[in-house]
């Protein structure tokens, strides 16, 4: 029998080892660029213009010269190949429809008669609104889940704790994913877009789902094995659901890995984000949520906070 519960602080430490660098990356990114991650135009406003079948690759200066005629000074071309044809993705601040034709005409003079693959243009207001409404929705969902779990676990002592621990584990997974995004943003300039937001929502839903399965077993064993100490009940429950946790994890892993390997380039970042989040979701159910119940049961919470750094306090009470 594996002793999961005895090593709980080791697991918390492992979580911190992943989360803290991510938080540091977020802070560094924030101080350098004024935003926590590299945000795509979905959030900041701007234009991505992808064209293909061009006669040659333009230089940054050539593109800037064209764009600045219309008051846009931050255009950056990024060469790419689509289905074997040369193309370029030009990122810039917002290209208004009034000037698009004119820039297109200038680009045609420079690059020949290209084909437009994608033109995405967003004003700055929308992205902030989308992420704000997503945030409120997640907060409301968390409260609803907290209430539901308190109700569903009403037959065991301290039902409220289960909901709180499930939410903390969920926040853990969100932090892992956000931190990873910030690190990738710093290292490779990976941008966070609306698809990333979708991946995050998926992870949030999965995280709670996965935690509840383990909690349910604890609920059942608390009633069946009344005489065992709480630690042992939790440990038994983790062991009994381990096969299921691993198998469900494998099933999701198979699907996502196949999508990452063979799926289109447009969804690769999205799929990788989900992979990280789902892994973290399973980890946090076993090694955080369930262990936190034990910590709480022993009244180690005060002790627990004392062991952690000041920043971590914000995390767990967030």
């Amino acid at each position, binding site marked *: 029998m*594996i002793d999961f519960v005895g090593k709980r602080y080791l697991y918390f430490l492992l979580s911190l080892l992943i989360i803290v660098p991510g938080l540091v990356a977020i802070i560094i990114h924030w101080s350098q660029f004024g935003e926590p991650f590299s945000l795509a135009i979905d959030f900041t406003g701007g234009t991505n213009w*992808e064209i293909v079948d061009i006669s040659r690759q333009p230089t940054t200066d050539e593109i800037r010269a064209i764009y600045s005629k219309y008051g846009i000074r931050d255009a950056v071309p990024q060469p790419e190949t689509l*289905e074997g044809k040369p193309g370029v993705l030009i990122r810039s601040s917002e290209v208004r*429809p*009034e000037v*698009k*034709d*004119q820039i*297109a*005409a200038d680009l045609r003079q420079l690059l020949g008669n290209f*084909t437009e*693959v*994608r*033109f*995405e243009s*967003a*004003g700055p*207001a929308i992205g902030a*609104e*989308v992420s704000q409404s*997503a945030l409120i*929705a*997640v907060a*409301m*969902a968390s409260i*609803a*889940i907290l209430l*539901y*779990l308190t109700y569903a676990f009403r037959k065991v002592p301290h039902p409220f704790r289960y909901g709180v621990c499930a939410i903390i584990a969920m926040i853990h997974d969100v932090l892992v994913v956000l931190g990873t995004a910030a690190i990738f943003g710093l290292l490779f300039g990976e941008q966070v877009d609306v*698809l990333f*937001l*979708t991946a995050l929502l998926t992870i949030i*839903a999965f995280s*709670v*789902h996965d935690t*509840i*399965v383990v909690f*349910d*077993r604890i609920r*059942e*064993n608390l009633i*069946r094995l009344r005489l*065992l100490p709480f630690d042992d009940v939790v440990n*038994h429950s983790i*062991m*009994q659901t381990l*096969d*299921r946790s691993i198998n469900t994890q494998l*099933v*999701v892993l*198979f*699907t996502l890995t*196949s*999508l990452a390997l*063979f*799926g*289109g380039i*447009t969804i690769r970042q*999205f799929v990788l984000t*989900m992979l990280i989040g789902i892994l973290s979701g399973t980890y946090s159910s076993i090694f955080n949520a369930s262990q936190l119940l034990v910590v709480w049961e022993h009244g180690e919470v005060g002790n627990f906070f004392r062991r952690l750094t000041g920043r971590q306090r914000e995390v767990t009470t967030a």
Partner: protein
Amino acid sequence: MRQRTFISLALIILLAIVCGWLALSNRTISIGSFTREVKVHLGLDLQGGLRVLLQADVPPGTTIERDQINVAKTIIEKRVNALGVVEPLIQVQGNNRIVVELPGIENPDEAIKVFGGTGLLEFVDAGNTPLTEGETIATTGPSPSNSCSGVVAQSSPTPTPTIAPSSTISPTNGITQTNAITNTQVYTTVMTGDCLETASVVFNQSTNRPEISFTLKGNGVKIFGDHTTANVGKYLAIALDKQVISSPSINSPITTGSGVIQGSFTVPEANNLAVQLKFGSLPIPLRIETTTNIGPTLGQDSVNRSIIAGAIGVFIVALFMILYYRLPGVLAVIALTIYGFIVFTIYKIGVPGLFDFVTLTLPGIAGFILSLGVAVDGNILIFERMKEELREGRPLALAIESGFDRAWPSIRDSNISTLITSAILLWFGSNFGASVVAGFAITLMIGVVIGLFTSVFVTRTFLRFILDVMPNISLWWYGVGSTPRREKSYAPTAE
């Protein structure tokens, strides 16, 4: 019990056949007067097309009447229909936005100009000097004395820069024109476009160029007649969204209520202009907030790749389930196939009374994958419990039933929490303009509900049926070897 199992099985097979038929085919179904096209509706991110979010462009603090935005939507709908786009989608979002989605459109830039322009046509008193074509001017704007409809547009008196054609009125020369107002004079609006009864493209017999012939209605005949009678020899400019289209001189009084607008437009431009005039101007100016145009190749490419990738993933999952759980695994794979059929049938024909179909987007596919995982998870939970019961020495029939009974609370609670999340996300996504969130939530929600049905009810019926027709097969088929797979030393002794 036995009879109920057979009835359930028959119903499941019937459902599987109907949904399988609907899921795998694209056809139009007619039952009496009920006609329905059955097909998967792909979002623009998957099939390519143009999506534009228009926002009311009014000064802060101005309230927008529900009627105004609805009238604007109707007018945009009419203009879009005149463009001949297949399956356009025009929706009011919130209280000040309109989303226009045009799948597979060939010329997105032209389309934006046609449906997005305010379309405010003004006949302007230019006095003694003609105005230059393409020039942007300031006008006094619509007022009760120069309009024909009862309602006067509440547009601001200053010229609102709209997304109306700027340079494109004369794109033949391809010269860029500045939008800046160089002419500071404010011209008097004599009559607005809502006095137009009809507008159509005709060809000038001498120059063979397209021009727009119009007839006036109501007050318009009198307003136009009076003005042209009093101002013979002067110039009467015609401006669309504050931009001068042409500036003819008044040669003689026009009292018959019909005339032509001449200008240097191409045939498609003349057609677009006629479309805008025919359906009137928008009651409020709209500004483009976001534009997304996905070329058809990019969308198709990502769909094809994702389908192949998804198929490989599902195949591996099926293989895993069969190898690990043996007979129940096979049954779970069949149940999951039925799951796929039902889910896709709902995507195609919707749920009567709730929605007509589900538009499948990339976030939607993410929701589907998660719900697939949840459905498989349901089966895994049940089968693991069954194995536990078998290892503890319960008879097969009892083990199957208690496997389901014991797994049910965790399936129920985890699924309900996922349903709560998706319901809140769906509500927020559809009300607060985050269509990405809504697209994810709707497929997740459908998937979780159907997954509950297939992983619990369908699999259970299958297992009961197998138990009934083959009661004596080896426990090996249920994933428990003749010798225990491994010592469950940690298993708590039952109470």
